[in-house]
């Protein structure tokens, strides 16, 4: 067992854990935050995507002990005083899910992805590596979100929901 300090959705926690515990298992099994989903547990599906120090990551591939002092935001931490995050609202508005299993990971990934695109980070489909990419461009969204699979194939509506937020059509109060 080893001790770990972690801030999760704004709460600072002191924890005693087995060093084998992944961040995903810590969230789900120890902290009862079951929004982050275990799909493949091998980094291939994206259902466990959370934000670590503001950047999206796959919680199943990170040993929690390595995160001592970090801040983690999960799907449970995105709403602000009961007000849904703009991406949560857009996913509902666009019916961007069917079974809903991949949705928390999709939304956390989209939050991180839009921050990356707005900061000007290029993607593999960005034509000019030195120009600012368009975060609302459909090809950019599809490429940047490729780490999140949806077995119901709700991709068309997922892309539409993200594009609407990316284009600024919905205010992002919760960010």
């Amino acid at each position, binding site marked *: 067992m080893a001790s770990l300090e972690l801030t999760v959705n704004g709460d600072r926690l002191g924890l005693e854990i087995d060093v084998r515990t992944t961040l995903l298992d810590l969230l789900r099994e120890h902290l009862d935050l079951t929004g982050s989903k275990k799909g493949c547990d091998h980094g291939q599906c994206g259902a466990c995507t959370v934000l670590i120090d503001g950047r999206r990551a796959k919680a199943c591939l990170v040993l929690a002990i390595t995160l001592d002092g970090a801040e983690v935001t999960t799907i449970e931490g995105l709403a602000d005083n009961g007000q849904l995050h703009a991406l949560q609202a857009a996913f509902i508005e666009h019916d961007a899910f069917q079974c809903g299993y991949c949705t928390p990971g999709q939304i956390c990934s989209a939050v991180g992805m839009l921050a990356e695109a707005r*900061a000007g980070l290029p*993607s593999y489909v960005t034509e000019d590596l030195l120009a600012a990419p368009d975060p609302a461009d459909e090809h950019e969204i599809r490429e940047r979100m490729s*780490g*999140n699979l949806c077995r119901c194939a709700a991709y068309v509506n997922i892309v539409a929901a993200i594009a609407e937020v990316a284009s600024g059509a919905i205010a992002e109060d919760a960010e």
Partner: protein
Amino acid sequence: MRPFSYERAADVSGAISSAAMPGAMFLAGGTNLVDLMKLEVARPDKLIDISRLPLSQIEELPGGGLRVGATVRNSDLAAHEAVRRGYPVLAQALLAGASGQIRNVATIGGNLLQRSRCPYFQDVSKPCNKRRPGSGCPARDGEHRNLAIFGHSKHCVATHPSDMAVALAALEAGVDVVGAGGSRTLPIGELYRLPGEDPELDTTVEPGELITAVQLDRQASGARSAYRKVRERASFAFALVSVAAIVRTEEGVVRDARIALGGVAHGPWRALLAEEALRDQPSTEDTFNHAAEAELAEALPLRDNGFKVTLARNAISRTLSEVCA
């Protein structure tokens, strides 16, 4: 996952002395190692966490060139202005690899040392000479559609999965390695090895040695570069074949070309025959096709991966056309 002890290294020398014990492994981003530990392909007794060592800087060197610390995250290197401007082939290769979430965590040193995705290597219920030396290679006569067409041996037909390493091979990067016996800089061409009779060794990095940085020389002015990746889906898949090409032409004549291939061998495959066939030739599609064919004439496809020969030939030719357009 099997039990292990965990310690966070305070400095590079501490990490290296701690790694002297058999069964110790370095942990950086963990995107490959943690997965392999779940699969019990990797079974370390001790993990030495190097992710907080002061190796996360990207330095622009006085004479041009770049030194990239081993724990720089893949996404940070791809986003760096000097890389986007001076080494576009590297930015593109990094962005072609894995997914956004993984690139945010995976490090440069870890990317270089990631293990093969050969299905037999990843399945502990199967024999595999890379995982258990001497147990055999079921891939040779089994599922090898995505495995090597160059440089394989009867003991191993695995491929190396990195995109970044392919670009670094074309860039002729240097890799700084530190161990108990001191430090050295390896040309990347000497980092990776062919499987031969001991495929359990992916690289020439010795147990207990730590990669601390990657060095890039300043690129010749006028050189243009590109990375092209062919895969089974549009994104978030390993390469069937990939091409990194850096070409300098003068008045329609190729003066210098450096080409490396991914997805075809035990490490990045430097296409020296293609490079030779391009030198001092007119920059035309005929030249590009001829160069690609010269390289692929030496390919040794397995029963089910002959399609990679055609794919690699076309990918080389197309990439050269794009770079020289």
